[in-house]
């Protein structure tokens, strides 16, 4: 395989596939490199396919059924669980039924959060922005209202939630669900934007039924039909040639040229060594460096009962409000945290999928950094098992098989060192929507 491409997209997840297909449909030449998968597994819920992507990919022509996750539930150590739903009004009603006064403010909160996320002015003047120039920055500096919004949006999630709510359980619940994706702490600068993302309608997660095709399988078909070129799975090197184009070499000596290399999720980037944590030269790490994600897939005995009887929800396990920040601090410092915040759900085939993003990218011991070892994986697995058992009595005895996976940066030199054509999208709730928007933005810039 040889040739010149506008995008090389690396990753086999839904966001990468959707981005590849959307780019081709918009007229770009796209190569897609997916990691080798040993076997097909029942997938976790994925972010929504927003309408504009659905239309662009003409998904109505494919046999795709999706159904929304039923609820977001948080299981506390010694307090009743907390539930929020997809709909704003339904959530407010649920909160009211739980006797939580904050239900009156839920609607305002949801509206304000979507308003903040939609306010391109802030994000453009401050964060990314295709049109941003000195004048838009000056305009923001001269506008106390815009600055206040920007500071809140890019501030801490705890401060934002305290602006709205009284009930501690609700604040912890929202923070846990908002931050579990990125692994941020709730007092950390920038964590508030995850709240806006969480409340975005494009961020609610969906599943495909057990007997239908998975979203990933459908998107692969779309990619094939649209004419995405499939590249080999492993990148050996990426070298910038004449500033605008990278020459990418794959295993098997195949080479292509690509103007942009996109990782639609940091998982793919970590796996490819493009986003480093601690160790040597953390690169491209905006919102990413310093953490790893750990996933465990449990096959359970028949008759395993989901908490609250709800098999279709997404659950968080958290003990104290301060745990998110403490867990994040531990991850940054290269330690394990005992009261690990854990997210879990049931896959369509009944497996329990547990994960946590509050894990160190590398471990710091005796003044030295080291990568993950088998022992670390075991230690984390047993923490996660304990956490699940604490919320589902007898859980340990139901486990029939378990598989673990850690998404952490590999140690050593990266094939992408020095290559500035790489874009890595941070872990987001609306990963699909954001990846397609990123593609559109790059194409609009016309580079």
């Amino acid at each position, binding site marked *: 395989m040889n040739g010149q491409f506008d995008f090389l997209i690396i990753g086999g997840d839904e966001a990468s596939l959707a981005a590849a297909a959307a780019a081709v449909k918009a007229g770009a030449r796209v190569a897609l490199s997916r990691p080798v998968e040993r076997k097909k597994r029942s997938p976790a819920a994925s972010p929504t396919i927003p309408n504009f992507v659905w239309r662009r990919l003409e998904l109505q022509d494919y046999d795709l059924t999706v159904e929304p996750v039923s609820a977001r539930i948080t299981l506390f150590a010694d307090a009743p669980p907390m539930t929020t739903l997809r709909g704003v009004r339904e959530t407010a009603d649920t909160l009211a039924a739980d006797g939580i006064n904050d239900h009156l403010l839920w609607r305002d909160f949801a509206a304000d959060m979507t308003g903040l996320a939609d306010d391109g002015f802030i994000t453009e003047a*401050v*964060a*990314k*922005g295709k049109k*941003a*120039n*000195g*004048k838009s*920055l*000056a*305009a923001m*500096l*001269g*506008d*106390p*209202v815009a*600055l*206040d919004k*920007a*500071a809140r949006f*890019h*501030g801490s999630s705890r*401060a934002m939630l305290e*602006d709205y709510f009284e009930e501690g359980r609700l604040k912890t619940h929202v923070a846990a669900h908002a931050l579990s994706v990125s692994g941020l702490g709730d*007092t*950390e*600068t*920038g964590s508030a934007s995850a709240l806006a993302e969480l409340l975005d309608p494009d961020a609610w997660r969906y599943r495909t039924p057990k007997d239908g095709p998975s979203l990933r399988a459908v998107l692969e078909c779309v990619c094939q039909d649209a004419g995405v070129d499939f590249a080999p799975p492993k990148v050996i090197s990426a070298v910038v040639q004449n500033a605008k184009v990278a020459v990418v070499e794959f295993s098997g000596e195949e080479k292509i040229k690509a103007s942009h290399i996109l990782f639609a999720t940091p998982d793919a980037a970590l796996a490819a060594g493009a986003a480093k944590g601690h160790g040597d*030269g*953390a*690169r*491209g*790490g*905006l*919102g990413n*460096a*310093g953490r790893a994600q750990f996933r465990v897939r449990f096959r359970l005995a028949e008759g395993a009962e989901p908490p609250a009887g709800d098999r279709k929800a997404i659950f968080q396990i958290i003990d104290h409000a301060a745990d998110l920040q403490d867990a994040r*601090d531990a991850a*940054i*410092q*290269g330690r394990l945290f005992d009261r690990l915040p854990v997210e879990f759900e049931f896959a369509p085939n009944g497996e329990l999928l547990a994960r946590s993003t509050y894990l160190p990218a590398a471990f*710091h011991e005796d*003044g030295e950094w080291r990568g993950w070892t088998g022992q670390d994986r075991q230690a984390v697995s047993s923490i996660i098992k304990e956490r699940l058992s604490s919320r589902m009595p007898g859980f340990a005895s139901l486990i029939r098989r378990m598989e673990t996976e850690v998404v952490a940066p590999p140690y050593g030199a990266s094939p992408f060192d020095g290559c500035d054509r790489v874009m890595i999208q941070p872990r987001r709730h609306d990963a699909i929507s954001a990846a397609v928007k990123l593609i559109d933005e790059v194409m609009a810039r016309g580079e």
Partner: protein
Amino acid sequence: MANEAANISLEGASAHRIEGGIDAIVIGAGVDSLAAAAYLGRAGLRTVLAGAGPEIGGRVAAREIAPGVEGIDGEHLITVLDPDVIADLDLYRHGLEFAARRLDTTYFFERGETLRFDGDLSYAAYTSLEDDDDREALEAFMSEVLETASFLRPAFVPGVYPGGDPQPQRTLEKALGQASPELMSRIRYFLAASAEDILRARFEDPQLCTLLLAETAFRSAAPPNEPFSFMSLIRRYAGEAAGLQGAAAYPKGGATAVVTALRRAAQAAKVDVRAGAPVKSILIEGDRVAGVALEDGGQIRAPIVVAALDAQQVFFDMIGPAGIDIGLQRALASARPEIATARMQIILKGVAQDEATQNNMMRRLLYAPPLEAITAAFIDARAGRVPQRVIVEAIFPTVLDEGASLDKRQVMSVMAHPLPADEAPDAKRREQIRSAVFDSIEMFAAGFSGRIEADDLWLVSDEAVALKSGIGAYAAKPNVLKQWALASAATSAGEINGLFFCGPEAQIGPGLSCAAGRAAAKAALRAFKRGAP
């Protein structure tokens, strides 16, 4: 008896005195108030400066730290003093002089290594580095950072005042509007990325990375691994000292010399400087200020009030929460301080024996703990624990300034960061902080503890007590985005016409600056001219 009766009746008279014929009142006795008052006076306004305490100077003040030895609180170096203030107010003519300019910095690292930076940052790469790659990386970095910093200088001065004055905004748009797309994309990157990400991506050499991270994190409450944290370095390098960008200088007589020069400038401008005249409240009539009421019961009426105390005192105590808008209330309430810098002045016995030590005593010394220790220090300080290792900046005023030299003793002036911002630390806590600072100093001056004759720890809580304020205003500043939001909320002053705020919340970044005082005075002058018959 007759005399006593006369006194009483005089006091009674003063209690009901209403003073008129004044154009502008400046509240506060710090450097920003003095600068603002001097600007107003020079423009011909009849200006009264009403300071609370008997001393002029605010947080920059001389104090006896040991029998017969005076130390200076507040600041110990000049790094960001506004060059326009120096020029406009003729501070050199009013006695400002530098005993040491363009101070080199010696950086000390964990394992005893050192690195010296030239006081002129654009030369730093040449004087200190042997490896060509490192030199190239540092040179490129410094030129980008200095260029960006000097370009962004106007963005670090508050520009939103009541009355819809469009000029600051126009000036800012004109200045920032000139940015090339490359510069703008660099600014966005420097703004939103974390210091750690930026520095790790730039430098292979761990020492350069560590020292620049320490410089960035020093005196900032933004942990260097969080977004927006890199801007504190840009803010610092946007400043200049003795005409050199990014430099540090020591004024003859210490930082109080700046106070003295400003006071002379104010008096030369015919400002009526009243030291012991505490203000009780700011008078508001309709949507505009009418003057101030003094603690002694008197009133001074004027159409312009420039307030240079902390926002809590100005807006809550002197105006009252009912008079200010909800945005400002929220901004002030949410600005809970977590991290502070400690000042310490240490009197050391003896003189330096070897030449290397002698040379170092004429420089700015900075202890840069390893990255992991800085990260841990921020996590600890934010959680209210005293960190094991802190960043330490030290100078020797007795060596830098001949006039301050002592016989067979030296004063070491230290700032240590980050420490928890305690409201009221007890003796045990102070001792913990003291020994954390000592431990960090030991890292680069082994055996120094044995030479200590006396030491004086000055925490943010001490400063708050001295200034009768909360600790919030004088704790370390958060990331630049939060500072911009708070500063613009405070300077727009809830749209009270004629009120111009230049307290500590109006200043972006730490250090002795006066830029907020200048900006407030300029805005006040424009308002005065618009309103003048």
